[in-house]
Protein backbone atom coordinates (compact mmCIF):
# COMPACT_ATOMS: atom_id res chain seq x y z
CA UNK A 1 0.00 0.00 0.00
CA UNK A 2 2.73 2.38 0.98
CA UNK A 3 4.65 1.67 -2.20
CA UNK A 4 1.59 2.44 -4.34
CA UNK A 5 1.23 5.80 -2.65
CA UNK A 6 4.91 6.52 -3.35
CA UNK A 7 4.72 5.23 -6.94
CA UNK A 8 1.81 7.53 -7.68
CA UNK A 9 3.60 10.45 -6.05
CA UNK A 10 1.06 11.06 -3.31
CA UNK A 11 3.77 10.72 -0.65
CA UNK A 12 4.86 14.37 -1.01
CA UNK A 13 1.52 15.44 0.38
CA UNK A 14 2.46 13.97 3.75
CA UNK A 15 5.86 15.63 3.88
CA UNK A 16 6.14 18.74 6.01
CA UNK A 17 3.09 20.94 5.57
CA UNK A 18 2.71 20.36 1.82
CA UNK A 19 -0.97 19.39 2.03
CA UNK A 20 -1.67 22.55 4.02
CA UNK A 21 0.21 24.68 1.49
CA UNK A 22 -1.89 23.27 -1.36
CA UNK A 23 -5.08 24.06 0.53
CA UNK A 24 -3.86 27.58 1.23
CA UNK A 25 -3.11 27.94 -2.48
CA UNK A 26 -6.66 26.93 -3.29
CA UNK A 27 -7.91 29.50 -0.80
CA UNK A 28 -5.98 32.24 -2.62
CA UNK A 29 -7.94 31.47 -5.81
CA UNK A 30 -11.23 31.00 -3.92
CA UNK A 31 -10.81 34.32 -2.13
CA UNK A 32 -10.36 36.17 -5.42
CA UNK A 33 -13.47 34.51 -6.84
CA UNK A 34 -15.55 35.28 -3.75
CA UNK A 35 -14.58 38.97 -3.72
CA UNK A 36 -15.28 39.20 -7.46
CA UNK A 37 -18.69 37.56 -6.93
CA UNK A 38 -19.51 39.93 -4.08
CA UNK A 39 -18.69 42.91 -6.32
CA UNK A 40 -20.47 41.47 -9.37
CA UNK A 41 -23.80 40.65 -7.74
CA UNK A 42 -24.91 44.19 -6.78
CA UNK A 43 -23.30 45.87 -9.82
CA UNK A 44 -24.72 43.26 -12.19
CA UNK A 45 -28.12 43.52 -10.54
CA UNK A 46 -28.14 47.27 -10.97
CA UNK A 47 -26.98 47.12 -14.59
CA UNK A 48 -29.52 44.39 -15.33
CA UNK A 49 -32.40 46.50 -14.02
CA UNK A 50 -31.15 49.50 -16.02
CA UNK A 51 -30.94 47.33 -19.15
CA UNK A 52 -34.53 46.17 -18.71
CA UNK A 53 -35.78 49.77 -18.82
CA UNK A 54 -36.66 50.92 -22.28
CA UNK A 55 -33.96 53.58 -22.50
CA UNK A 56 -32.14 53.39 -25.81
CA UNK A 57 -28.86 54.98 -24.64
CA UNK A 58 -28.47 52.75 -21.59
CA UNK A 59 -29.45 49.67 -23.55
CA UNK A 60 -26.91 50.43 -26.28
CA UNK A 61 -23.96 50.92 -23.94
CA UNK A 62 -24.97 48.02 -21.72
CA UNK A 63 -25.23 45.75 -24.71
CA UNK A 64 -21.87 46.93 -26.06
CA UNK A 65 -20.23 46.28 -22.70
CA UNK A 66 -21.77 42.83 -22.49
CA UNK A 67 -20.75 41.83 -26.01
CA UNK A 68 -17.15 43.05 -25.63
CA UNK A 69 -16.68 41.22 -22.33
CA UNK A 70 -18.39 38.09 -23.63
CA UNK A 71 -16.48 37.67 -26.86
CA UNK A 72 -13.02 38.02 -25.31
CA UNK A 73 -11.50 35.08 -23.44
CA UNK A 74 -10.97 36.02 -19.77
CA UNK A 75 -7.30 35.27 -20.28
CA UNK A 76 -7.10 38.03 -22.91
CA UNK A 77 -8.94 40.45 -20.61
CA UNK A 78 -6.44 39.64 -17.87
CA UNK A 79 -3.55 40.43 -20.22
CA UNK A 80 -5.16 43.67 -21.36
CA UNK A 81 -5.66 44.91 -17.81
CA UNK A 82 -2.42 43.57 -16.36
CA UNK A 83 -0.06 44.63 -19.16
CA UNK A 84 -2.17 47.29 -20.81
CA UNK A 85 -2.94 49.42 -17.75
CA UNK A 86 0.75 49.94 -17.12
CA UNK A 87 1.23 51.12 -20.68
CA UNK A 88 -1.92 53.21 -21.01
CA UNK A 89 -2.08 54.97 -17.63
CA UNK A 90 1.42 54.41 -16.33
CA UNK A 91 0.12 52.72 -13.20
CA UNK A 92 1.44 49.38 -12.13
CA UNK A 93 -1.42 47.15 -11.08
CA UNK A 94 -0.65 44.15 -8.92
CA UNK A 95 -1.71 40.77 -10.38
CA UNK A 96 -4.30 40.47 -7.57
CA UNK A 97 -5.89 43.83 -8.33
CA UNK A 98 -5.84 43.15 -12.10
CA UNK A 99 -7.59 39.83 -11.64
CA UNK A 100 -10.18 41.36 -9.31
CA UNK A 101 -10.92 44.05 -11.91
CA UNK A 102 -11.25 41.54 -14.75
CA UNK A 103 -13.37 39.01 -12.90
CA UNK A 104 -15.62 41.72 -11.49
CA UNK A 105 -16.13 43.19 -14.96
CA UNK A 106 -16.91 39.73 -16.31
CA UNK A 107 -19.15 38.76 -13.39
CA UNK A 108 -21.04 42.04 -13.65
CA UNK A 109 -21.68 41.46 -17.35
CA UNK A 110 -22.93 37.90 -16.82
CA UNK A 111 -25.03 38.87 -13.81
CA UNK A 112 -26.62 41.83 -15.60
CA UNK A 113 -27.75 39.57 -18.42
CA UNK A 114 -29.36 37.14 -15.95
CA UNK A 115 -31.18 39.94 -14.15
CA UNK A 116 -32.31 41.63 -17.37
CA UNK A 117 -33.74 38.35 -18.64
CA UNK A 118 -35.55 37.69 -15.36
CA UNK A 119 -37.03 41.20 -15.11
CA UNK A 120 -38.31 41.03 -18.68
CA UNK A 121 -39.81 37.60 -18.13
CA UNK A 122 -42.19 38.83 -15.43
CA UNK A 123 -45.60 39.08 -17.16
CA UNK A 124 -47.35 42.47 -17.23
CA UNK A 125 -50.32 40.89 -15.51
CA UNK A 126 -48.28 40.68 -12.31
CA UNK A 127 -47.91 44.46 -12.19
CA UNK A 128 -51.51 45.07 -13.22
CA UNK A 129 -52.95 42.61 -10.71
CA UNK A 130 -50.89 44.19 -7.94
CA UNK A 131 -52.21 47.61 -8.91
CA UNK A 132 -55.76 46.27 -9.03
CA UNK A 133 -55.30 44.98 -5.50
CA UNK A 134 -54.39 48.52 -4.45
CA UNK A 135 -50.68 47.96 -3.92
CA UNK A 136 -48.38 50.93 -4.42
CA UNK A 137 -45.15 50.68 -6.47
CA UNK A 138 -42.94 49.93 -3.46
CA UNK A 139 -45.21 47.16 -2.26
CA UNK A 140 -45.58 45.71 -5.76
CA UNK A 141 -41.82 45.39 -6.15
CA UNK A 142 -41.17 44.27 -2.61
CA UNK A 143 -43.81 41.54 -2.35
CA UNK A 144 -44.60 40.54 -5.94
CA UNK A 145 -41.90 41.29 -8.48
CA UNK A 146 -38.56 40.98 -6.65
CA UNK A 147 -39.33 37.62 -4.99
CA UNK A 148 -40.15 36.15 -8.40
CA UNK A 149 -37.00 37.60 -9.94
CA UNK A 150 -34.84 36.17 -7.16
CA UNK A 151 -36.45 32.78 -7.60
CA UNK A 152 -35.70 32.85 -11.29
CA UNK A 153 -32.09 34.03 -11.14
CA UNK A 154 -30.98 32.06 -8.09
CA UNK A 155 -29.93 28.80 -9.84
CA UNK A 156 -27.91 30.58 -12.52
CA UNK A 157 -26.42 33.01 -10.02
CA UNK A 158 -25.15 30.11 -7.95
CA UNK A 159 -23.90 28.52 -11.13
CA UNK A 160 -22.02 31.75 -11.83
CA UNK A 161 -20.09 31.16 -8.58
CA UNK A 162 -18.75 27.83 -9.85
CA UNK A 163 -17.88 29.42 -13.18
CA UNK A 164 -16.05 32.15 -11.30
CA UNK A 165 -14.11 29.59 -9.23
CA UNK A 166 -13.10 27.71 -12.36
CA UNK A 167 -12.10 30.89 -14.16
CA UNK A 168 -9.92 32.20 -11.35
CA UNK A 169 -7.54 29.28 -11.94
CA UNK A 170 -6.22 31.53 -14.73
CA UNK A 171 -4.59 33.91 -12.24
CA UNK A 172 -1.51 31.70 -12.07
CA UNK A 173 -0.76 32.82 -15.63
CA UNK A 174 -0.14 36.40 -14.47
CA UNK A 175 2.03 35.29 -11.59
CA UNK A 176 -0.26 34.85 -8.60
CA UNK A 177 0.90 32.00 -6.37
CA UNK A 178 -2.22 29.86 -6.10
CA UNK A 179 -2.82 26.12 -5.89
CA UNK A 180 -1.30 25.16 -9.28
CA UNK A 181 1.79 27.28 -8.64
CA UNK A 182 2.20 25.88 -5.12
CA UNK A 183 1.86 22.41 -6.68
CA UNK A 184 4.68 23.19 -9.11
CA UNK A 185 6.86 24.44 -6.25
CA UNK A 186 6.25 21.27 -4.25
CA UNK A 187 7.05 19.08 -7.27
CA UNK A 188 10.21 21.06 -7.95
CA UNK A 189 11.40 20.90 -4.33
CA UNK A 190 10.90 17.12 -4.16
CA UNK A 191 12.27 16.29 -7.60
CA UNK A 192 14.88 13.89 -6.17
CA UNK A 193 12.99 12.30 -3.30
CA UNK A 194 9.61 11.81 -5.07
CA UNK A 195 10.13 11.75 -8.84
CA UNK A 196 6.45 10.95 -9.43
CA UNK A 197 5.12 13.86 -7.39
CA UNK A 198 3.63 15.52 -10.50
CA UNK A 199 0.93 12.85 -10.71
CA UNK A 200 -0.02 12.92 -7.04
CA UNK A 201 0.01 16.69 -6.74
CA UNK A 202 -1.96 17.49 -9.89
CA UNK A 203 -4.44 14.69 -9.23
CA UNK A 204 -4.98 16.27 -5.80
CA UNK A 205 -5.46 19.74 -7.29
CA UNK A 206 -7.95 18.25 -9.77
CA UNK A 207 -9.87 16.71 -6.88
CA UNK A 208 -9.71 19.87 -4.75
CA UNK A 209 -11.31 21.94 -7.50
CA UNK A 210 -13.98 19.29 -7.96
CA UNK A 211 -14.72 19.27 -4.22
CA UNK A 212 -14.99 23.06 -4.28
CA UNK A 213 -17.36 23.26 -7.26
CA UNK A 214 -19.46 20.11 -7.17
CA UNK A 215 -21.54 20.89 -4.05
CA UNK A 216 -22.33 24.34 -5.46
CA UNK A 217 -23.39 22.78 -8.79
CA UNK A 218 -25.66 20.37 -6.93
CA UNK A 219 -27.24 23.24 -5.01
CA UNK A 220 -27.82 25.13 -8.25
CA UNK A 221 -29.44 22.12 -9.88
CA UNK A 222 -31.64 21.49 -6.83
CA UNK A 223 -32.87 25.09 -6.86
CA UNK A 224 -33.52 24.92 -10.58
CA UNK A 225 -35.66 21.82 -10.18
CA UNK A 226 -37.51 23.48 -7.35
CA UNK A 227 -38.14 26.63 -9.37
CA UNK A 228 -39.46 24.66 -12.33
CA UNK A 229 -41.50 22.17 -10.40
Amino acid at each position, binding site marked *: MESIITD*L*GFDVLFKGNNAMRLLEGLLVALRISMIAVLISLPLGGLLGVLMSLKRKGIRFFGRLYLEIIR*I*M*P*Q*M*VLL*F*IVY*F*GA*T*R*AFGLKLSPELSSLIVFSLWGTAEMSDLVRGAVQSIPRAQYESSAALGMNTAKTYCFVIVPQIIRRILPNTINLI*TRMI*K*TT*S*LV*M*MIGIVEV*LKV*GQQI*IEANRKSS*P*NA*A*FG*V*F*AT*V*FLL*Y*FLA*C*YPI*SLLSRYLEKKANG
Partner: protein
Amino acid sequence: MDLAVMGEYLPRFGEAFLLTLRIGWAGIALSLLIGLAAAFIRHFKIPLLSGLMAGYIELFRNTPLLVQLFFIYFGLPKLGFTVSPELCGAVGLGLLGGSYMAESFRSGLDAVPPAQSLSALSLGMTRRQLFVHVVLPQAFAISTPSVVANVIFLLKETSVFSAISLMDLMFTAKDLIGLYYDTTECLVLLVLFYIVMLLPVSLLGRKLEKKFEFGRSGT
Protein backbone atom coordinates in the same frame (compact mmCIF):
# COMPACT_ATOMS: atom_id res chain seq x y z
CA MET B 1 0.59 52.52 -31.83
CA ASP B 2 3.19 51.65 -34.44
CA LEU B 3 1.73 50.02 -37.55
CA ALA B 4 5.18 49.04 -38.83
CA VAL B 5 5.82 47.06 -35.65
CA MET B 6 2.44 45.41 -35.96
CA GLY B 7 3.22 44.46 -39.56
CA GLU B 8 6.46 42.94 -38.38
CA TYR B 9 4.70 40.84 -35.74
CA LEU B 10 1.85 39.83 -38.01
CA PRO B 11 3.44 36.62 -39.38
CA ARG B 12 4.20 35.31 -35.88
CA PHE B 13 0.66 36.03 -34.73
CA GLY B 14 -0.67 34.47 -37.92
CA GLU B 15 1.22 31.27 -37.25
CA ALA B 16 0.05 31.19 -33.64
CA PHE B 17 -3.51 31.85 -34.82
CA LEU B 18 -3.42 28.84 -37.16
CA LEU B 19 -1.99 26.63 -34.42
CA THR B 20 -4.70 27.76 -31.98
CA LEU B 21 -7.40 27.18 -34.58
CA ARG B 22 -6.08 23.75 -35.54
CA ILE B 23 -5.89 22.43 -32.00
CA GLY B 24 -9.10 24.22 -31.03
CA TRP B 25 -11.17 22.71 -33.83
CA ALA B 26 -9.58 19.28 -33.35
CA GLY B 27 -10.63 19.48 -29.70
CA ILE B 28 -14.13 20.63 -30.65
CA ALA B 29 -14.53 17.77 -33.14
CA LEU B 30 -13.45 15.36 -30.42
CA SER B 31 -15.84 16.96 -27.94
CA LEU B 32 -18.75 16.45 -30.36
CA LEU B 33 -17.90 12.75 -30.71
CA ILE B 34 -17.48 12.23 -26.97
CA GLY B 35 -20.58 14.31 -26.27
CA LEU B 36 -22.78 12.36 -28.70
CA ALA B 37 -21.57 9.00 -27.38
CA ALA B 38 -22.03 10.04 -23.76
CA ALA B 39 -25.48 11.53 -24.47
CA PHE B 40 -26.75 8.33 -26.12
CA ILE B 41 -25.35 6.21 -23.31
CA ARG B 42 -27.04 8.43 -20.74
CA HIS B 43 -30.32 8.74 -22.67
CA PHE B 44 -30.73 4.99 -23.17
CA LYS B 45 -29.50 4.34 -19.62
CA ILE B 46 -27.05 1.65 -20.70
CA PRO B 47 -26.13 -0.06 -17.43
CA LEU B 48 -22.70 0.56 -15.91
CA LEU B 49 -21.57 2.81 -18.77
CA SER B 50 -24.27 5.31 -17.91
CA GLY B 51 -22.98 5.70 -14.35
CA LEU B 52 -19.43 5.95 -15.63
CA MET B 53 -20.39 8.72 -18.05
CA ALA B 54 -22.27 10.58 -15.32
CA GLY B 55 -19.09 10.56 -13.23
CA TYR B 56 -16.97 11.77 -16.14
CA ILE B 57 -19.42 14.56 -16.97
CA GLU B 58 -19.55 15.84 -13.38
CA LEU B 59 -15.77 15.64 -12.94
CA PHE B 60 -14.96 17.62 -16.08
CA ARG B 61 -17.78 20.15 -15.75
CA ASN B 62 -16.68 21.03 -12.24
CA THR B 63 -12.96 21.56 -12.81
CA PRO B 64 -11.08 24.20 -14.82
CA LEU B 65 -9.42 23.32 -18.14
CA LEU B 66 -6.09 24.62 -16.86
CA VAL B 67 -6.09 22.04 -14.05
CA GLN B 68 -7.16 19.27 -16.46
CA LEU B 69 -4.33 20.16 -18.84
CA PHE B 70 -1.76 20.19 -16.01
CA PHE B 71 -2.94 16.77 -14.92
CA ILE B 72 -2.80 15.31 -18.43
CA TYR B 73 0.43 17.01 -19.46
CA PHE B 74 2.53 16.82 -16.28
CA GLY B 75 0.79 14.14 -14.20
CA LEU B 76 -0.04 11.33 -16.64
CA PRO B 77 3.55 10.90 -17.97
CA LYS B 78 4.46 9.60 -14.50
CA LEU B 79 2.16 6.66 -15.22
CA GLY B 80 3.78 6.16 -18.59
CA PHE B 81 1.36 8.12 -20.81
CA THR B 82 3.46 10.82 -22.41
CA VAL B 83 1.64 13.16 -24.76
CA SER B 84 2.84 16.00 -26.99
CA PRO B 85 1.59 19.50 -26.11
CA GLU B 86 -0.56 19.55 -29.27
CA LEU B 87 -2.24 16.25 -28.48
CA CYS B 88 -2.65 17.22 -24.84
CA GLY B 89 -4.36 20.48 -25.84
CA ALA B 90 -6.76 18.76 -28.24
CA VAL B 91 -7.54 15.88 -25.87
CA GLY B 92 -7.95 18.18 -22.87
CA LEU B 93 -10.28 20.48 -24.78
CA GLY B 94 -12.12 17.43 -26.17
CA LEU B 95 -12.67 15.96 -22.72
CA LEU B 96 -13.80 19.25 -21.21
CA GLY B 97 -16.04 19.96 -24.22
CA GLY B 98 -17.37 16.41 -24.30
CA SER B 99 -18.83 16.83 -20.83
CA TYR B 100 -20.62 20.04 -21.88
CA MET B 101 -21.75 18.67 -25.27
CA ALA B 102 -23.10 15.52 -23.61
CA GLU B 103 -25.43 17.63 -21.46
CA SER B 104 -26.55 19.69 -24.47
CA PHE B 105 -27.34 16.65 -26.60
CA ARG B 106 -28.99 14.80 -23.75
CA SER B 107 -31.26 17.69 -22.84
CA GLY B 108 -32.25 17.77 -26.53
CA LEU B 109 -33.05 14.05 -26.53
CA ASP B 110 -34.91 14.25 -23.24
CA ALA B 111 -36.92 17.27 -24.36
CA VAL B 112 -38.69 15.47 -27.21
CA PRO B 113 -42.18 14.90 -25.77
CA PRO B 114 -43.18 11.24 -25.18
CA ALA B 115 -46.33 11.83 -27.27
CA GLN B 116 -44.07 12.10 -30.31
CA SER B 117 -42.65 8.61 -29.76
CA LEU B 118 -46.05 7.13 -28.95
CA SER B 119 -47.64 8.68 -32.03
CA ALA B 120 -44.83 7.45 -34.26
CA LEU B 121 -45.12 3.92 -32.88
CA SER B 122 -48.88 3.91 -33.29
CA LEU B 123 -48.39 4.91 -36.92
CA GLY B 124 -46.49 1.67 -37.31
CA MET B 125 -42.96 3.08 -37.41
CA THR B 126 -40.18 0.79 -36.27
CA ARG B 127 -38.02 1.85 -33.31
CA ARG B 128 -35.24 2.70 -35.74
CA GLN B 129 -37.50 4.85 -37.93
CA LEU B 130 -38.86 6.50 -34.83
CA PHE B 131 -35.40 7.44 -33.64
CA VAL B 132 -33.96 8.54 -37.00
CA HIS B 133 -36.98 10.40 -38.41
CA VAL B 134 -38.82 11.66 -35.34
CA VAL B 135 -36.63 11.93 -32.25
CA LEU B 136 -33.22 12.88 -33.70
CA PRO B 137 -34.33 15.83 -35.89
CA GLN B 138 -36.24 17.41 -33.01
CA ALA B 139 -33.50 16.72 -30.48
CA PHE B 140 -30.97 18.21 -32.88
CA ALA B 141 -33.01 21.39 -33.31
CA ILE B 142 -33.45 21.77 -29.56
CA SER B 143 -29.78 21.29 -28.71
CA THR B 144 -28.27 23.39 -31.52
CA PRO B 145 -28.19 26.75 -29.69
CA SER B 146 -26.45 25.30 -26.66
CA VAL B 147 -24.04 23.30 -28.83
CA VAL B 148 -23.01 26.51 -30.61
CA ALA B 149 -22.65 28.25 -27.24
CA ASN B 150 -20.35 25.42 -26.20
CA VAL B 151 -18.27 25.81 -29.36
CA ILE B 152 -17.74 29.49 -28.57
CA PHE B 153 -16.91 28.65 -24.96
CA LEU B 154 -14.36 26.05 -26.10
CA LEU B 155 -12.74 28.41 -28.60
CA LYS B 156 -12.31 30.91 -25.78
CA GLU B 157 -10.86 28.23 -23.52
CA THR B 158 -8.03 27.67 -26.03
CA SER B 159 -6.44 30.75 -24.46
CA VAL B 160 -4.95 28.61 -21.67
CA PHE B 161 -2.94 26.44 -24.06
CA SER B 162 0.19 28.51 -23.44
CA ALA B 163 0.38 26.93 -19.97
CA ILE B 164 1.51 23.66 -21.57
CA SER B 165 4.06 25.50 -23.73
CA LEU B 166 2.01 25.58 -26.92
CA MET B 167 2.97 28.63 -28.96
CA ASP B 168 -0.56 29.92 -29.26
CA LEU B 169 -1.78 33.52 -29.45
CA MET B 170 -1.40 34.18 -25.71
CA PHE B 171 2.09 32.68 -25.68
CA THR B 172 3.16 34.79 -28.66
CA ALA B 173 1.77 37.99 -27.15
CA LYS B 174 3.44 37.38 -23.78
CA ASP B 175 6.70 36.39 -25.43
CA LEU B 176 6.87 39.50 -27.65
CA ILE B 177 5.82 41.83 -24.82
CA GLY B 178 8.61 40.37 -22.66
CA LEU B 179 11.19 40.73 -25.42
CA TYR B 180 10.45 44.13 -26.95
CA TYR B 181 7.92 45.90 -24.68
CA ASP B 182 5.64 46.77 -27.62
CA THR B 183 2.72 46.15 -25.29
CA THR B 184 0.06 48.15 -27.10
CA GLU B 185 0.80 46.65 -30.52
CA CYS B 186 0.83 43.10 -29.16
CA LEU B 187 -2.41 43.51 -27.21
CA VAL B 188 -4.18 45.03 -30.23
CA LEU B 189 -3.04 42.15 -32.44
CA LEU B 190 -4.09 39.66 -29.77
CA VAL B 191 -7.58 41.14 -29.54
CA LEU B 192 -7.96 41.38 -33.33
CA PHE B 193 -7.02 37.75 -33.87
CA TYR B 194 -9.44 36.57 -31.19
CA ILE B 195 -12.20 38.64 -32.76
CA VAL B 196 -11.45 37.04 -36.13
CA MET B 197 -11.66 33.64 -34.45
CA LEU B 198 -14.82 34.21 -32.42
CA LEU B 199 -17.02 36.76 -34.16
CA PRO B 200 -18.02 34.57 -37.17
CA VAL B 201 -19.02 31.68 -34.89
CA SER B 202 -20.91 34.04 -32.61
CA LEU B 203 -22.86 35.56 -35.53
CA LEU B 204 -23.51 32.12 -37.02
CA GLY B 205 -24.81 30.99 -33.64
CA ARG B 206 -27.33 33.81 -33.56
CA LYS B 207 -28.54 32.93 -37.04
CA LEU B 208 -28.89 29.25 -36.21
CA GLU B 209 -30.76 30.06 -33.04
CA LYS B 210 -33.40 31.92 -35.05
CA LYS B 211 -33.55 29.17 -37.65
CA PHE B 212 -34.08 26.41 -35.11
CA GLU B 213 -36.58 28.25 -33.00
CA PHE B 214 -39.29 25.76 -34.01
CA GLY B 215 -37.49 23.18 -31.89
CA ARG B 216 -38.51 24.96 -28.74
CA SER B 217 -42.19 25.41 -29.49
CA GLY B 218 -42.68 21.65 -29.89
CA THR B 219 -44.31 21.07 -26.53
